[in-house]
């Protein structure tokens, strides 16, 4: 059967993975390729890589770092940050990524979703959304608003309206990233995650807030997500104890969440 995925998220600055809290105060963790290698050996299901300064610095993604990670991991690898055109997408795919994540740029220019899906197939286009609970009001019927530019800029878009539009335009997966929960280890925002899972038919990825195995299990069951983005729990120096992929999966399986079983090494 199709299993739920654990996706390690890398927020990369100058080739190094960093860890933020509510999109701020990034602290250094490790070189991206080293951490990628370690997590691949630990049988992570997937890796997503955000070049978090590319968009603000108005430059192309750091392709040499993308290549250095792609050489280490033989599981799916998504890359995002500063993608402006299908030519940019092509460069990133050529560097060894499978999927492209679009976020702020897709809000500014939604047709990039359609163009990407046409050129590379919709499975290639991951729409990442930064959502924040703002309360129900005119124009924001869900009570959740989409933000861009590292959670700094409100867009006036309702989260549910935006993901429906994104699916229509050709997004193959949607990341629901809660700004309120990011880096807090207080659990995913299940309310908006499940509302988005209801609203669209493509796979949903829960993001922002996983600090315990129960949080992950909740995101994948009550939250209705097909995949969970984790980072703090795997490697944040802010947590007293990090948990490896193998242990996470064993404990998810105990909670009856279907996961890809750990493959024992063979001679």
């Amino acid at each position, binding site marked *: 059967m199709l299993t739920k995925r654990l996706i390690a998220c890398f927020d990369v600055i100058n080739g190094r993975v960093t860890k933020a809290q509510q999109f701020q105060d990034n602290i250094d963790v490790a070189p991206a390729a080293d951490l990628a290698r370690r997590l691949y050996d630990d049988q992570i*299901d997937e890796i997503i890589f955000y070049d978090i300064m590319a968009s603000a610095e108005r430059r192309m993604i750091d392709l040499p770092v993308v290549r250095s990670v792609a050489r280490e991991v033989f599981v799916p690898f998504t890359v995002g940050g500063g993608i402006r055109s299908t030519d940019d997408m092509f460069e990133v795919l050529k560097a060894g990524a499978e999927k492209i994540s679009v976020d702020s740029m897709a809000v500014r220019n939604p047709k990039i979703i359609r163009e990407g899906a046409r050129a590379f197939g919709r499975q290639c286009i991951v729409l990442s959304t930064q959502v924040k609970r703002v309360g129900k009001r005119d124009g924001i019927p869900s009570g959740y608003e989409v933000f861009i530019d590292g959670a700094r800029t409100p867009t006036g878009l309702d989260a549910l309206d935006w993901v429906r539009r994104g699916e229509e335009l050709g997004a193959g997966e949607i990341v629901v990233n809660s700004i309120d929960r990011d880096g807090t280890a207080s659990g995913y925002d299940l309310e908006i995650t499940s509302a988005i899972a209801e609203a669209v038919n493509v796979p949903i990825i829960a993001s922002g807030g996983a600090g315990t195995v129960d949080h992950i299990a909740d995101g994948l069951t009550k939250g209705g997500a097909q995949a969970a983005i984790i980072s703090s729990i795997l490697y944040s120096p802010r947590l007293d104890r990090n948990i490896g992929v193998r242990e996470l999966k064993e404990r998810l399986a105990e909670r009856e969440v279907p996961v890809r079983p750990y493959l024992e090494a063979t001679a």
Partner: protein
Amino acid sequence: MIGVIDYRAGNAPSVGYALARLRIEHELVTKAEELDRCDRLILPGVGAARATLASLAESGLTGALQRRVRDEGAPFFGICIGLQVLFEHSAEENTMCLGWVPGEVRRFDDSLRVPQIGWNSVHLRRDHPVTADFPDGGYCYFVNSYYAAPADPGVVLGETSYGVEFCSVLAHENIVATQFHAEKSGELGLRLLRAFAGWAP
């Protein structure tokens, strides 16, 4: 030497990285004449069937592939869209495909979440040299909205369930193909690529 067909809608570099990790001699090929120096070929794929076929035709690779694989019997490994285009027809944008394997490609039922994205189990239906090191029920990484329905059940080497039981590994004469991304299925995918490199059909 394995030639990895490198066309705009493909992900040849990822396949190249996997072969490099396995220390298997390979090159990414973009032109018809380069196919002649490769004794076996891999057709990767990530996009849509129509775009893939158009991209192959544009690069003048369609005829050369046909000659190397169908006429001269070079061992061939198709991945994802590289499996689907082998059939006669795909429901994706109503596309006529290569027709090397009888059968058609259908869309998953929309009562499911489509595309299927993630790790799913592969159940082997018979023995084959390419799956000799692959454990029955092993998990591989899938990304697909469409699936192959071969006319001849004899070509099915592995099956996977997503609403429907579908052909996830195909073996037909000198052709093998996987619906999942062998280059992105961790150790188990690498085992298939390694076995393919040594396969003498």
